[in-house]
């Protein structure tokens, strides 16, 4: 049976939600699904991965159970090593900060085709669908080669569990994702014994000297990783733009940096990330990492709330795949009004604080 490797992305000790949509996409290959995790004990997530169709989990770590320090070159090599060891020629990973580092390095090394930001894969035809030309078109790309690599656009493909019979007790709702203990406790209620042993976990040790060898691609040295400071005044939300279900964004209509606090307060109540248009970033009000658009992040949340954003074609290039777009704009003629699902033609400085208040009341009841 053919095999498909799936690089599972872990963030802050938790499996990212978007992984499940990726696994759902991988099931289309009708092959044995191998989940790769690095520096992660998969025991606590194995039920959940099994429920989504994973057959085997490869736990990649360094010798003597050491963690493999983050380095895109050594991590790429480790994934390639695992692909080689298990004879895997199809690899999927999320098109996220980590996926953008690993997939192209592996593709370059293997001289393999790679399509990033896939929104669908047809394994029989060896084609992938992805947006081209600023989200104005969808391209079907045919991949030819010994190894095929796919970067999956996060949060576009719905996660559909399969092995639900055996894990009926495992709540599949997204809010149970971090409550792994509850899932394990619930297992004895299940009737299928295989659910207790599947999926198989296979430790895979990367030799330290392997990591040291520069091999064909020379190493780059990581001096340090600088995390955005949560206490920093630039931190408007603790939710990452790429992972968010809701994004509330501000544009030129925000008028200044201080006013972004209004969005930040609302985001806290909504559990949302805060984004910005290029106009707000170029004005120096918020950092570039918050920019949504053609030359910023390309997001696809369930709900995108645009406050004081006119809606240029370049901004739409970064958010048009959102499920629902809500515009708050004082100007009825703003182009975003014609391109959204819901709009409120009122002063954002009045509406947003009221929304914060209403949501806060809901949260407290």
């Amino acid at each position, binding site marked *: 049976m053919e095999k498909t490797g799936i690089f599972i992305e872990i963030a802050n000790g938790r499996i990212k939600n978007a992984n499940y949509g990726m696994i759902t996409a991988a099931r289309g290959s009708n092959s044995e699904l191998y989940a790769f995790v690095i520096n992660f004990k998969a025991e606590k997530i194995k039920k959940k991965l099994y429920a989504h169709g994973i057959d085997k989990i490869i736990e990649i770590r360094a010798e003597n159970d050491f963690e493999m320090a983050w380095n895109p070159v050594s991590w790429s090599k480790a994934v390639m090593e695992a692909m080689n060891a298990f004879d895997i020629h199809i690899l999927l990973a999320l098109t996220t900060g980590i996926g953008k*580092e690993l997939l192209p390095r592996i593709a370059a090394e293997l001289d393999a085709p790679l399509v990033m930001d896939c929104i669908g894969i047809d394994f029989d035809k060896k084609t992938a669908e992805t947006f081209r030309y600023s989200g104005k078109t969808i391209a079907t790309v045919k991949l030819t080669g010994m190894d095929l690599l796919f970067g999956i656009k996060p949060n576009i493909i719905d996660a559909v569990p399969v092995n639900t019979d055996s894990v009926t007790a495992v709540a599949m709702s997204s809010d149970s994702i971090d409550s792994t203990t509850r899932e394990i406790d619930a297992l004895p209620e299940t009737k299928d014994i295989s659910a207790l042993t599947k999926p198989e976990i296979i430790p895979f040790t990367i030799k330290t000297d392997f990591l040291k060898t520069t091999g064909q691609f020379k190493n780059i040295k990581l001096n340090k990783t600088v995390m955005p400071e949560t206490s920093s005044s630039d931190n408007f939300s603790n939710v990452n733009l790429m992972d968010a279900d809701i994004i509330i964004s501000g544009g030129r209509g925000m008028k200044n940096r201080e006013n972004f606090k209004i969005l930040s307060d609302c985001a806290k109540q909504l559990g949302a990330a805060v984004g910005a248009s290029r106009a707000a970033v170029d004005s120096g009000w918020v950092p570039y990492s918050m920019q949504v658009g053609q030359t910023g992040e390309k997001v696809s949340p369930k*709900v995108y709330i645009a406050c004081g954003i006119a809606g240029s074609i370049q901004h739409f290039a970064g958010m048009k795949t959102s499920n629902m777009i809500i515009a708050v704009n004082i100007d009825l003629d703003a182009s975003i009004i014609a391109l959204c699902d819901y709009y409120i033609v009122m002063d954002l400085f009045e509406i947003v604080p009221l929304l914060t208040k209403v949501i806060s009341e809901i949260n407290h009841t």
Partner: protein
Amino acid sequence: MQIYVCVKHVPDSAANIVISGKNSIDKSIPFLINPYDEHAVTEAVKLKKSLKKSEVVAVCLGTDDAEKTLRSAMEMGADRSILIMVATGQDSITTAKALKAAIESDGEPGIIFTGRESIDDVGMQTMFRIGKAFGFPVAANVVKFSIKGSKVTVESEREGGIRDVYELPLPCVLAAGRGLNTPEYPTFPQIVKARRKQIKKIDFNTLGIEKIGAAMEVVELKPFVKKRCPVEIKGTPLVAAEKLAKILHEEAKVI
């Protein structure tokens, strides 16, 4: 030092894309230099000014129309350019091979700059393939750059503001992200000067690129239009806020 900058000739992001045939677009729209590549050129020119005896060479694949993009790079300070003449768009596997062959035939690269991605295809991989072809290390989405002797230090932004600080030996490939610098509009004298700068044209077919049996090919292109029917949320501000909360809860099911 020979500094090479790989630039791409892409459709203006504001242009209306019309699909032509099954898998291509009507190319009679304005094309220009890929926005991220402007950061790459700007950084290359900045580096050149800090080094003795260096030259910045812009390299591009395309038809005669791509001269515009190379002209833009030269207006921004690139000394000369190379245009690899090819009628149709190539995938990143072939593009990287062609860039490598053209650069190698021209000189010995000290640093190769690219943009972090092209805004049309957003393949995000050509820089890594160039690195592999030359055997040079690669840093992606570089937002800060400094050089000391034969080493460079870069800050590479991953996502959500997380930055990895890497040290790379020269020669290397660096993909410029936004935030690395602020490209400036060329002045009139710069524009005039750029007109006299050389564009060396190389026929793609003379580069001897061998197809390796791995490829990516667009087999179909269709317009993406998500139909939305805008509905106004009316009422007093409080009523509107309450209606919005209800939509988030009942329809979007996010709260």
